[in-house]
């Protein structure tokens, strides 16, 4: 095959077919994708969980993953957060003219591995190639569907007074990994993205503890943003214990040096679970028995009904609000 992606590869002609058969079908191979029809024919039982996300991350390769694995993990996780078993994924590529084919191969291989790891299949897709400069190397959209197995399903508006909040592991890893690798700084700290599929852990949890009220993964905006969203949706006041929030020492150090707050950094391999207190112990047992859930811990509780608000009990025993950021997380001056 050619060395670089050309506009020809997105035009639907012979070059396109060569790319689809030679790369996408080769790596993603399964019976649903193989016919290469306009769409895939699937057997999925309802209710169905359906989610989409577009990945524009820079850099496209980072410690712990790449734009491809992230695209699979992210959508698999969003589907799973609705209390569903993810089954099928579509992917749409928008590729910059001139991208090295070896780079695309590396990304697609990574996606195939991630899909296998998660137990989902890529069943349909699309490829566009745009002129140099129109996108930054590659953007990927993935859309996933899954079968909801929890009734009633977890929703953002179901948090109730008396519930506790569990986080499945350390926070801030992904956001800091991206920041440091993009800027080429603090690489000696060895910060690695936590990008991973969460569906296996979620399904084990649901099986043992069906009384879950809320499941959500704190991606963009971090833990603080996600908690605020849930508090607003559920119209509750939530109290969080700062010293219970697991943060790796290397992440604490990196954040302190850069003037960033780990509570606002993205996570791509962690989730929040809000459920009645009496089931917390069992839930922790299930999570901690999974390799990705070893550091699962209770970080707070839902206090009462009221305006959506997060009250942080600080490490020194004081109190303050934990609010949402206005926009981008920008590093401080001095």
């Amino acid at each position, binding site marked *: 095959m050619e060395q670089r992606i050309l506009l020809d590869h997105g035009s639907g002609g012979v070059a396109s077919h060569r790319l689809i058969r030679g790369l996408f079908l080769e790596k993603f191979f399964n019976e649903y994708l193989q016919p290469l029809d306009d769409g895939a024919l699937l057997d999925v039982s309802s209710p169905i969980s359906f989610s989409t996300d577009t990945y524009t991350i820079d850099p496209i390769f980072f410690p712990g993953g790449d734009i491809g694995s992230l695209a699979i993990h992210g959508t698999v996780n969003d589907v799973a957060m609705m209390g569903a078993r993810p089954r099928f994924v579509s992917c749409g590529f928008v590729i910059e003219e001139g991208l090295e084919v070896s780079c695309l191969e590396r990304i697609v291989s990574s996606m195939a591995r991630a899909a296998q790891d998660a137990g989902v299949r890529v069943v349909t897709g699309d490829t566009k190639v745009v002129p140099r400069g129109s996108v930054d190397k590659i953007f990927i959209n993935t859309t996933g569907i899954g079968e909801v197995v929890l009734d009633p399903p977890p929703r953002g508006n179901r948090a109730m007074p008396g519930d506790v909040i569990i986080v499945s592991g350390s926070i801030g890893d992904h956001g800091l990994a991206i920041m440091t690798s993009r800027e080429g700084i603090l690489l000696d700290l060895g910060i690695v993205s936590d990008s991973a599929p969460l569906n296996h852990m979620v399904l084990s949890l649901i099986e043992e503890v069906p009384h879950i009220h809320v499941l959500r993964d704190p991606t963009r905006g971090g833990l603080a943003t996600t908690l605020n969203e849930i508090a607003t949706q559920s119209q509750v006041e939530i109290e969080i214990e700062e010293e219970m929030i697991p943060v790796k020492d290397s992440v604490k150090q990196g954040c302190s040096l850069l003037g960033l707050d780990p509570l606002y950094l993205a996570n791509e391999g962690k989730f929040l679970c809000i459920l009645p207190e009496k089931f917390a112990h069992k839930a922790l047992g299930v999570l901690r028995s999974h390799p990705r859930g070893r550091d699962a811990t209770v970080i707070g509780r839902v206090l009462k009904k009221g305006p959506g608000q997060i009250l942080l009990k600080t*490490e*020194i025993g004081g109190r303050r609000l934990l609010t949402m950021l*206005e926009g981008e997380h920008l590093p*401080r*001056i001095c």
Partner: protein
Amino acid sequence: MAGGRKEIHGLVERMKTLVERCGGFSFMEVCGTHTVAIFQSGLRSLFPEGLRHISGPGCPVCVTHARDISLGMELVRGEGIVLATFGDMMRVPDAQGMSLKMLRAKGARVHVCYSPLDALDLAQREPGVEVVFWGIGFETTSPTVAATIKEAQQRGVSNFSVLPAHKLIPPALDFLLSSGVEVDGLLLPGHVSTVIGVDVYGFIPHKYGVPAVISGFEPLDIAMSICRLMEMKLSGRVEVFNQYTRAVKRNGNPRARALLEEVFERDDALWRGIGIIKGSGLRIRDSYSAMDALKRFNPKGSDISDPPGCRCGEVLQGKITPPMCPLFKKRCTPMSPVGPCMVSTEGSCAAYYKYGTC
């Protein structure tokens, strides 16, 4: 951090006793990092009744006058200019409500830096553009800018310049105390003091009889420092005390000061909401004028007054607290800030809004 919590509670109890003996005590800090630390750690929620925390002009973004902001906005609109800046400046609104973030969305070239050296490297990578670094900050930041200017000269980089807007803390403190700001004690900035040392603050106890403590940023540091302030008032032995000995040497950092001395000289400066404070700013010396963006581009800037109703100036001088400003949380919010005190990550108004006043 159980040990830390016990120590803090011990200090909070001590604070309570001391405040009662003082019959009330107010302290002012003049460092944005102290403002954030006090709120973010939750220490503020533990202050006893009668202890008043006032935030002074310690946020370099907040004290940047509207006129100085207009200079930066004018330059970034210039053909072939890339404005390099610390992240904090991105959302500061000018008199028309326009920010660098908005201008960037409209096509202006703005580059967010962690350090001024990033800007110099950018200038070397892109010889076809003019890179202007916006020099904002106190004595913690200005030495690195001075070093960068020297480095630019050494590397022979001709498309790099600095828009100078640096300020100095001691003249501002002198001005505040002489204009009658009423505080019982001053919490002095830790990072600035690593550069300027201890003795330079001597006028605070000697001229004004106010105790002062150079404090670190951990909650323990701050709590200890506040106790020390009150002890000094009670004993009558008023002086400058260095609590932050692990970072601040008596003589500060002579090399950093020498760099400053070589590249910059003192000038009068405009402080938002305060006006001119003599000798409180830095301008680039003639020997480095090739790297002075003011001389290279000669921006006009605009003479504008603060927006009506905005009381940033009084907040900055510690005369009112943010909730006393009529715009606070109503017209002025982080989403749509009127003044920089709300938009800077270290601004008092932003801190009150973000962390609440539990």
